[in-house]
């Protein structure tokens, strides 16, 4: 008896194609989120650096850094509370000094386009910015 197998290749292609497509789309989603988080982190570090370097005191600078980071992540639709921010000012905020800001953000690997992100392993993206305090600024 001769077995008729016409059309089987299409069914196999669709099935295996979908099987390959699901992890591919997941990977694309994670990569896009990584890119977005990297952009948000670098924006946050840069804005925080600019704002801290223009602040008149450490308390004011701390507030400016927090606000800048919150705004930068919120603009990209990311949760600012998950960001880790470290900043330091060499010898206070004197003229010609430097402010260094480092922002890190975890991107969850266990996420799907509709389901959202689940608890699980994360990839941390980091951004660092060094801003110079204006050597001729009028405020100390």
């Amino acid at each position: 008896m001769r077995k008729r197998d016409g059309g089987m290749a299409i069914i196999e292609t669709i099935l295996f194609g979908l099987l390959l497509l699901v992890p591919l789309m997941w990977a694309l989603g994670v990569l896009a989120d990584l890119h977005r988080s990297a952009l948000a982190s670098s924006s946050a570090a840069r804005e925080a650096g600019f704002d801290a370097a223009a602040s008149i005191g450490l308390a004011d600078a701390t507030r400016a850094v927090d606000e800048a980071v919150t705004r930068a992540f919120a603009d990209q639709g990311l949760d600012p509370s998950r960001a880790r921010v470290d900043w330091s000012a060499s010898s206070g905020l004197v003229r010609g000094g430097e402010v260094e800001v480092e922002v890190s953000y975890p991107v969850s690997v266990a996420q799907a386009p509709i389901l959202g992100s689940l608890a699980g392993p994360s990839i941390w993206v980091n951004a660092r910015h060094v801003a110079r305090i204006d050597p001729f600024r009028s405020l100390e």
Partner: protein
Amino acid sequence: MDATLSIIILLVMVLGAVQVALTLYARNVVAAAAHEGARAAIELGRNPHDALVVARSSVERSAGGLVDRMRVTMSLDSTGARSVVQVRVTGLLNSPGPVPLKFPVSSVATSSRQKAPE
């Protein structure tokens, strides 16, 4: 016959994945362009009108080719000790993938600066 159809189906799947990847990338580029526009506006704008011109020019240079019917709006809030500029970019994203589709895109970016002493 089967091989031809299978190749076509696979090609559609691969091109679709490429399209999705490039569309997501383009969306992020527009968001970054909006941010650059906001930063340029707050640094270089001498007045609200000038700031809008600077923001629009910066966004168009960064992402003009990606967005059709692009609209750049700006709001300036100068209450308190800081000036805050918010730039919003809306339009139709020209997906740079193999299929010429357009997707609506909207991106917001905020930038602030300490007010200069009076």
